[in-house]
């Protein structure tokens, strides 16, 4: 049986590694490295290959959680990573300049995969800003003929990460 995996993507610093750490049974296998370029002012570590965590089901089957590297120069890896994946979680960092554009970029880049599976949007760092309003994300989705759940989450909280996976699983079954 092929590997069961859920993919988590988002801009650098959105919280992919944090989300996986919050829910994975094993500490995420980090492939982080010290940041060198413009990102270094913001973050000390960034993920260069991928993060990886796991959940064990009742019959010992495993579900793997993969975080894509955030930086766009790793875009070539995204398509490889999603092959055979169950679905996508897109984390949108609302403290960035244009979070709506970020979301659209990921929806576009993963459009084939999303069309076959499904996606959940997690808005992060809402404690730091309440813009753009939630409605604008739904409008942006609607413009692309999409209807996915958009949740305001704190990826440091296991319950919030579980909600996103739970919603994704329901989408796969019923939408």
């Amino acid at each position, binding site marked *: 049986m092929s590997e*069961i995996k859920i993919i988590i993507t988002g801009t650098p610093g959105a919280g992919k590694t944090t989300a996986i750490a919050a829910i994975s*049974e094993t500490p995420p296998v980090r492939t982080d490295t010290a940041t060198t370029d413009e990102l270094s002012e913001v973050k000390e570590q960034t993920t260069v290959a991928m993060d990886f965590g796991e*959940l*064990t*089901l*009742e*019959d010992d*089957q495993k*579900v793997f959680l993969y975080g894509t590297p955030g930086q766009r120069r790793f875009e070539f890896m995204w398509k490889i990573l999603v092959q055979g994946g169950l679905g996508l979680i897109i984390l949108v960092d609302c403290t960035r300049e244009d979070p709506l554009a970020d979301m659209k970029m990921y929806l576009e880049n993963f459009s084939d995969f999303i069309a076959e599976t499904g996606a959940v949007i997690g808005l992060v760092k809402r404690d730091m800003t309440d813009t753009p309003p*939630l*409605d604008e994300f*739904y409008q942006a989705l*609607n413009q692309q*003929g999409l*209807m*996915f*759940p*958009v*949740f*305001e989450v704190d990826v440091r909280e*296991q*319950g919030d990460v*579980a*909600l996103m*996976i*739970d*919603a994704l*699983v*329901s*989408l*796969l*079954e*019923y*939408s």
Partner: protein
Amino acid sequence: MKYLSSIGLSVKDENVLKSLIDLLGARMSEEWHYRDDVPADALLLDVDNPDAIATWKMRPETARRNTIAYSNSEPGFALTRRLAKPLRAAELIAVLKDIEQANDELAVPVVGSEATEVTTLADCVDRQGNGVMRLACGDREVVIDRSRQQFCSSESGESLAALLTLPLPEYQISTGADVRLPSEASVRWQDQKAVLWLVGQCGSHGKLLDGVDRNGLFRLNRWPGFGPVRPSHTVLSLCSLLSRKSAMGIADMREATGLPEFDIIAFINAAFLTGILDIQSGDVARPETGAAKPEVSTERKGLLAKIRSRLANPRT
């Protein structure tokens, strides 16, 4: 014998109205009395008073028949009968005669037959419109301020849900100016969506809201914000189902999920109350659902159920 009642009038207006009624006498074909304690044949509503409108909206349909909008200027409120302030005998007589006549034309009065009564908390909150409303049971309470889109409660989480599950007669309900607000310092106001969602989920008792067409086709325009209460599998399934491109009827929803209608109605009401539900008339030609995704295999369903079960049992 006919009865007139009023909602939201100033003390002065109410006194004027009562004395005018006493003076009508022979000028009317029937005898009119001012009474608040019996079902009224005509109701004067001060539409310049938002709290009065809120109270009025909660009255059952039967009690809202023959409402006369009483206002300073042209009311932004669609009622066929109106009286301008201040009250004048001639105008009052004209409008009451009109009501007498309209009632005569109805061979059999419809009172109580087709008209729907407010029987659930969800109905009651839905009808309340834009004012303030307080629900209390013993020392537990919820205050919902629809105009400021917020609520506060002595309860939270599961105990709030439990409070909203009671049958309607168990609550003491006050609205508008009658609501004693908790002192500002002691309460935490929260977004009303959370409580409206719970009112729909817990306070529907299997009855679809009046504004919702039983044969309609439903679709979500967004997902609910769940707040601190983790949504059930039922709720997530229905959210997913109503995220599809084509809207769905209640029967389709039952078939797709195997859920009881009771749960589906609770969900639809909750979505309606929180403003995330789009309703299309079920009469229009059904869109072709030909492009639907293939059935999810049993094996796949099994896997998804296992993931769900794992998420419900977090390991620390």
